[in-house]
């Protein structure tokens, strides 16, 4: 199972390579590009494909990849549901909310639901503490949640 960047992806990576003072600075943005094309996660094949396009050793890219939590080391569902369980959210019932979502979706934290639609994770503060509890689903924030509103949002996701 090998991975190759699309034409469009290669173009984006090349743009990032010339955007910053050094080409290493393009590693993070390029990992985002590749992760998106690989359905939301990164494995060795992805690292090697990037290494070739970027002409940066795979070990160097791998080191960066492993350091940052926004790069997924495992497969995730189509909708990655990240519930903040840090302090301001915890004071407003976010851990109970996270457990509720798992129960309703019949899944465990950080696993993919059998239909491939969801992965539920607990994450640290997302800078949305005044509208707790909150969750991030893929790129979007959903704030001031209740158990009901969160489930309605998730069930309606296309």
């Amino acid at each position, binding site marked *: 199972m090998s991975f190759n960047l699309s034409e469009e992806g290669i173009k984006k990576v090349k743009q990032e390579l010339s955007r910053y003072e050094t080409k290493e600075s393009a590693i993070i943005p390029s*990992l*985002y590009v590749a992760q998106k094309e690989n359905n939301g996660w990164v494995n060795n094949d992805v690292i090697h494909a990037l290494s070739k396009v970027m002409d940066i050793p795979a070990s160097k890219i791998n080191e960066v990849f492993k350091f*940052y939590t926004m*790069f997924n080391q495992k497969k995730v569902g189509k909708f990655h549901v990240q519930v903040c369980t840090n*302090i*301001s959210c915890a004071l407003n019932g976010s851990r*109970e909310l996270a457990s509720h979502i798992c129960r309703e979706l019949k899944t465990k934290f950080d696993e993919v639901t059998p239909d491939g639609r969801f992965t539920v994770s607990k994450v640290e503060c997302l*800078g949305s503490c*005044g509208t707790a509890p909150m969750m991030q689903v893929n790129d979007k924030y959903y704030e001031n949640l209740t158990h009901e509103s969160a489930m309605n949002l998730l069930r309606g996701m296309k």
Partner: protein
Amino acid sequence: MESKLLTEFYHLDEFRGIEGYKKNGGYVELAKALKMQPQQIIDEVKASGLRGRGGAGFPTGTKWSFLPKNGEPRYLLCNADEGEPGTFKDRLMMERAPHQLIEGMIISAFAIGSKKSYIYVRGEYHYPISVLEKAIREAYDAGLLGKNILGSGFDHDMDVYSGAGAYICGEETGMISSLEGAKGQPKLKPPFPAVQGYLRKPTIVNNVETLAAVKYIIRDGAAAYRKHGTEKSPGTKLFSLSGNVMKPGNYEVPLAYPLIDLINKEGGGMKPGRKLKAVIPGGSSAPVMTAAEVEKATLDYECLAGMGTMLGSGAVIVIDDSQCMVDMLGVLTHFYHHESCGQCTPCREGTGWLNKIVHSILEGKGRLQDIELLEKVADNMKGRTICALSDAAALPVLSFVSKFRDEFEFYVREGRSKVKGTTYAEMHH
């Protein structure tokens, strides 16, 4: 006296775009600043007493003066990593007023002689990043960025860089490592970034709110800016109010504003039937205060430092009497353990131990001597690491344990929470 400087126009949707921003005083100070001598701007910022809004409260003008006098390219980095739990003011500033930040940055860049700046934004902030990118394009189109800005002969380029989910990249040297394309690990200081920072070139790192405030110092002058706040804490500040209050949100008030007023007036007080128990006044690393201490506190650097805590990022986290302090400390120790970058042994091991001990208490397996062990481990983590995360992890532990000791002792003896009456498993299912 009207105390809103930064947020005066935040209720206006049009303030986000360049036209609406200009209609409401936007880029007037940039034109003014470009006619000043750079040193004059630095002197004005110094005279204003502005202190960094990112957490440490270091005087901004003084930091700028650490740059080598001439030669060498130098960088301006805006710290928009905003990872300190409880803090959400920079997000508001970027979303509501991207041009205010850009203007503050161009003025600051001109003052320090920087031709290139980056705004390092935490990766989760997709929306703020898109708002900033659009605003930067607008600024280029209007001749406010790029070559020969407003005919002044000053050139400046600005770009946004997205982080990827690591709290430690908010620490300035961690941020520099990250921007250089490496793991976001902090670097030993000295050399300080002002001497050797990004790509080993002189670099100034400032928080979003700090850089935006520069505009108002140029607008009103240092003396007028100093009419807000106190001698040692001049100006206004955004406070991110969260936790168990009726109206959480960002509120701009003059420094030295009474903490209890922020909670009761701006924040609408406690929820019905609940009482104030504790407040973390400056983001999760600031030592916790009891309700009695809160009554006496004002929101300025010196008052909070005098009370053994800190203003930090201005994140005021309110905790009511229904909350278990052992449980809340567990949230914090988990966070610091997760975020330690692992370079320094006291931090890597210490954060792990703290989290393990608090969770063993929460799971009903604690022993009385574990409470002292927590204090001992925390004490050994202070002041001996590359960056301040280790201290930041130790401080909440020491304050929680000393101020709410009865809750820890009860939990150890009974295997359940004194406040909730239940075990950890029962609390969260």
